[in-house]
């Protein structure tokens, strides 16, 4: 919506504007404060954290907490696990959903309607209700403490959303563009790769971001599926059990939280402009 500014504003309007901006600044401050406090604490030396009167920003910034977090037992293992599981789940979901999205958006076949309904329904699957059976299934198939099982679950959690979003993007590419490539002599696959795929870039980014956040954050299943082998844990579990690791060292804990949140924040803020619309569109669709 356009902001309506007008020459010669009356004082009342100006006062309203100031009030509005003040309110907005307050909302901004309240929203941002917890995240800011995480950063600030992570950089404060222990003495400042322990001080009776907290200072708003670190007077003597230090990296010692980050060193402590990174040096903590198993940090790199968990980091690697998280990255491996997340990347594998996202890539798998992208590949599988591209195939399905293509079939749904470009082909007419018996069962297409029911398939779409199933995908929509799966998007709202009650995953929390599946913790127990997943645990039992994993145990029966000897997939407990295995990253493969975790990857599979994360893949399935992100798959429906990915199909729906990519299908939307695919449907937005006119079929004639693909046809034109066929007329030029491309195979169907080449037509897709050369012509359609580049247009899917924002959709691929939106869906991989969604998958990335989901898998990177996931806490319940990893708690249930990784039982004995601590070396297979991921960052959320590690972070949630920081007390066992750091005791009450809040500097190190906030440094650990920062290291955990940073990849998501960077990726998100970096892609937000290009992806935001897609995320919202996808969210609106389900």
């Amino acid at each position, binding site marked *: 919506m356009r902001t309506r500014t007008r020459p010669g504003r009356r004082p009342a309007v100006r006062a309203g504007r100031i009030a509005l901006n003040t309110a907005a600044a307050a909302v901004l401050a309240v929203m941002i404060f917890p995240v800011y406090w995480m950063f600030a604490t992570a950089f404060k030396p222990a003495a400042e954290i322990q001080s009776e009167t907290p200072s708003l920003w670190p007077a003597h910034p230090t990296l010692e907490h980050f060193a402590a977090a990174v040096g903590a037992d198993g940090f790199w293992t968990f980091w690697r696990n998280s990255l491996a599981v997340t990347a594998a789940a996202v890539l798998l979901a992208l590949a599988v959903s591209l195939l399905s999205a293509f079939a749904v958006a470009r082909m007419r076949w018996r069962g297409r309607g029911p398939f779409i309904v199933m995908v929509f329904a799966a998007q709202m699957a009650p995953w929390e209700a599946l913790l127990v059976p997943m645990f039992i299934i994993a145990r029966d198939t000897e997939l407990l403490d295995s990253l493969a099982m975790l990857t599979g679950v994360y893949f399935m959690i992100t798959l429906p959303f990915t199909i729906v979003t990519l299908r939307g993007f695919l449907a937005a590419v*006119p079929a*004639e*563009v693909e*046809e*034109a*490539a*066929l*007329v*030029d*002599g*491309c*195979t169907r696959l080449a037509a897709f790769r*050369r*012509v359609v795929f*580049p*247009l899917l870039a924002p959709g691929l980014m939106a869906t991989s971001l969604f998958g990335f956040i989901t898998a990177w954050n996931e806490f319940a299943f990893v708690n249930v599926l990784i039982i004995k082998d601590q070396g297979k844990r991921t960052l959320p579990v590690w972070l949630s059990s920081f007390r066992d690791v750091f005791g009450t060292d809040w500097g190190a804990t906030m440094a650990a939280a920062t290291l955990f949140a940073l990849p998501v924040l960077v990726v998100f803020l970096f892609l937000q402009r290009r992806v935001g619309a897609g995320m919202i569109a996808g969210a609106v669709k389900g």
Partner: protein
Amino acid sequence: MTLILDGVRVRQRGEPWLDGIDLEFPSGMTTLIGPLAAGKTTLMRVAAGLLPPTAGRVVVNGKDVTPVSVRKRSVAFVYQQFINYPSLTVYENIASPLRLARSFPKEDVDRRVREVAELMGIGDLLGRRPAELSGGQQQRTAIARALARPVDVLLLDEPLANLDYKLREQLRADLKGMFAGSPGVVLYSTADPAEALTFAAPTVVLGEGRVRHAGDAADMYDRPPTLAVAATLSDPPLNLLPGVVRDGRIECLGVSFPAPGVQGSGRRVVLGVRPHQVSIERTGPGGLEFPAEIRLAEVTGSTTFLHLLLPDRRHLVAQLPGTRLFTPGEPAVAHVDPAHVFVFDEAGGNLLATSAAEVGPHG
């Protein structure tokens, strides 16, 4: 080089889209003209191989290519919508079919791209992407892409329909003559009679999925064999008036004129008069006069379209040269020279007489 559509029929969702199409196209350009939903696009898609016909064959140079997939055929297609590869530059768009054609020498690609781009007047836009072009430039790119590679069958499906008036005129002028000496078959579809007449190429009139007539566009314009052909080739639309044959004369709304070639007393006919043949001044002796009331005058600048209401509540449109001012509601008299009246059989729509042929020369 010939393209033959042999007994082609297309049914989609139970509806006949094309029926009994038997056509043979020679090298060079052929115009397909027809109103909306006449089957032009369907016919072109069948000819290209994008749509398998429900029945019938597509034969190119004596070879049945019906089962051959579109990418293995030597065809190019220009859509009514401006279809280019959005992620590629104009240059890469035009080069795309050349790079894909195995027979085309790689070292000639650059030369050929620049050549066609020059021909289409987009030589200085090669670095841009389609989204950065105007509609006219986008369609020029699409046409350049289709022209780049020599093909057996080049299909242009209403390429100018989505352009605005000025750009259409310009591109039409550029295209005129471009395909005349083409070694391949060029099919150009349009709904605009002016295009068919401008190109002066062999013309096929389509309607409701069938071939209405095939022949020379100017001939068909002068002597439309059926009412449907006359309507398709008339823009602004043909005025239609009811008539009855009686003793070698045709009576119409209280006036009558001799029509020696028309048989059968009491036969009902439809008279077709093009708007520019209607005037409101006496043109000469023997003219038909219809008293009317002025309803509306549309002024375009070079012409004025005068909408007249005849006594039987029927509308008659007169296309008058120049800007003329009229007062709605005032009476007027519409003059029509019987020499410019087409007489169609009401039952079959066939042309019974152009009075012109019997009475004298026409313009």
